[in-house]
């Protein structure tokens, strides 16, 4: 059963809702392919979406206009989801159900709420580091507000522009101003030690990522992962064309026994850490993201990279981060050496690689 068929019988919808949802529908299309095609799997999700739509519809219908808000949507969805006991769903399916629920809610409420309700068990804080980002910071925060964060901590550092004025006033947003320029890593460390949530999502003020892109990270970290990374693999060139930084990231993961993580790294945003991870690694270590990653792997924390978010092409180019051997690249290479040092302190210089005597190896390979 296709989704369009499913939606048709249910009441007329305002064109605004439709326009807004059309783009969503396009984005969540992989959902229908996700089950790799068993007709039954698809139908089950279809049915659940229908239930969600109806539940959302009834959640909104008995209420005054004034009490209908994203907060209400979120708490109503959370209650319904707990009752429906759909804990085993993948994040793709959860997002589809959430979107159906919101469509029902919006239809009944005759509203156009854009917030995404998520069935979170714990609380999540967002940390945004920003330095002179007046052009993007407002958009970054309006996307974050569409997610059920406990708080959104914005670390403004070394700002000489109107970044502060651009930040929308909202009861969840906490702004921390530092006169000195700190760099993303230090700012994230400060954010991590200020954050009160059970988990923290980190992103930057210079890149606008949609709430739909960030939601999977929240779901993964809430469902028990300790470290959730952005899966940047689809955006990377083949190995022969990769830069030194990308190779170092891959090298670190491979050598620590996690080749499946490829070049995914805490160096890239967005990423999320559980409270357990932050205390195991230490907020100070977050200043050197590859070192934090190495410790996370060595300490056996649960690390996942569920979804690709394209930050490679959208990254702002600055004088410092262009070309081979640029300042930022050198910084990150140094960070990786520091990461190796931290791992080697715990596991020895060969990180558990074979120390078979060369004579024995030779006999094994060339002996007659």
């Amino acid at each position: 059963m296709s989704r369009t068929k499913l939606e048709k019988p249910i009441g007329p919808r305002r064109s605004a809702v439709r326009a807004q949802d059309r783009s969503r529908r396009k984005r969540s299309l992989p959902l229908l392919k996700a089950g790799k095609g068993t007709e039954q799997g698809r139908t089950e999700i279809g049915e659940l979406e229908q239930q969600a739509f109806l539940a959302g519809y009834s959640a909104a219908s008995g209420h005054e206009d004034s009490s209908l808000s994203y907060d209400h949507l979120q708490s109503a969805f959370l209650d319904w989801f707990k009752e429906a006991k759909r804990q085993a769903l993948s994040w793709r399916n959860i997002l589809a159900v959430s979107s159906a629920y919101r469509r029902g809610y919006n239809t009944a409420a005759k509203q156009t709420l854009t917030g995404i309700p998520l069935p979170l068990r714990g609380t999540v804080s967002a940390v945004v580091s920003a330095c002179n980002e007046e052009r993007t910071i407002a958009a970054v925060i309006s996307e974050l507000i569409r997610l059920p964060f406990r708080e959104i901590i914005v670390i403004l550092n070394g700002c000489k522009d109107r970044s502060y004025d651009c930040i929308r006033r909202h009861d969840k947003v906490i702004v921390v101003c530092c006169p000195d320029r700190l760099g993303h890593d230090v700012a994230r460390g400060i954010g991590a030690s200020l954050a009160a949530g059970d988990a923290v999502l980190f992103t930057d003020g210079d890149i606008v990522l949609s709430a739909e892109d960030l939601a999977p990270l929240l779901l993964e970290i809430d469902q028990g992962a300790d470290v959730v990374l952005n899966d940047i693999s689809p955006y990377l060139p083949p190995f022969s064309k990769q830069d030194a930084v990308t190779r170092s990231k891959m090298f670190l993961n491979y050598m620590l026994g996690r080749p499946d993580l490829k070049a995914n790294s805490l160096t890239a945003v967005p990423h999320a850490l559980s409270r357990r991870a932050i205390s195991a690694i230490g907020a100070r270590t977050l200043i050197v993201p590859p070192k934090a990653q190495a410790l996370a792997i060595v300490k056996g924390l649960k690390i996942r990279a569920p979804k690709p978010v394209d930050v490679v092409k959208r990254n702002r180019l600055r004088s410092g981060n262009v070309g081979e051997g640029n300042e930022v690249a050198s910084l990150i290479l140094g960070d990786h050496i520091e990461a190796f040092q931290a791992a080697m302190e715990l596991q020895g210089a060969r990180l558990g690689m074979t120390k078979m005597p060369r004579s024995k190896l030779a006999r094994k390979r060339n002996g007659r």
Partner: protein
Amino acid sequence: MLRKRRLAGGARQRARDSKRPVRRVLNHPNPIVSIIIPAMNERATLPGVLRETCRVHPRSETIVVANGSTDGTPAIARKWGARVIVTEEPLGHDVGRRVGAEAARGRILLFIDADMIIPATELRPYVKAVSEGVDVALNDYSGPLEGREIHPVVLAKYSLNSLLGRSDLKGASLTAVPHAMSRSVAEAIGYEALEVPPLALVAALLRGYKVRAVHSVPVGRMNPIKYRGRQEDPLTGLIVGDHLEAVHRLILERGSRGGYSDLGRQRDKVR
């Protein structure tokens, strides 16, 4: 032109050998180039290898380090006129190279393997580079890059070069033959460093020696596959571990950031 080990098969090889005039290795009494060949049970390919080494340089010596061989490798090497060092114990390529280098008298050391016949024309560029002032001349070959998954050894070679600020070397490495170095480098970094090739490379680079990838010989395609199927070749773990030791050396000599700046990060701001 590049012949695989046992590719021609024993019989065909012998038939061809018998038609050619037997050339002997001439060891110059006062050599400039020392060609070092560790060999363990390589009777099939050693004659072919030695035939090429005679043509590398007019003033050269050829040293075969026959280790742990039970197939008459030392006798073949002697018959061909090479200087032969025999050890009963197997040494492995790297230790074999060290032993050969210590015995060498030339001021240019050329390292090749006994299981791979590389034509003299493909070996001369390395000797030429060192005679013209390069301190360490590497094979400009990075290993197989195609395929969905990158091989850990290839990744380790590339990454070590990158961390040393020598991305231009790509995946060139002292673990791969052929390579050449001036004897003064071997003396400066210590002959024992040759036993762990990536360690020797780090030592040479940190001392500011001129390291270049001078010429490409695609040895990966000529290397015999000794481990088939799912079983992982223990050599992979050994080489990868060697590269980690090299990273460790970099840390010991240049500090925990390997000499890279911290870009003024104010670490004390986070508590």
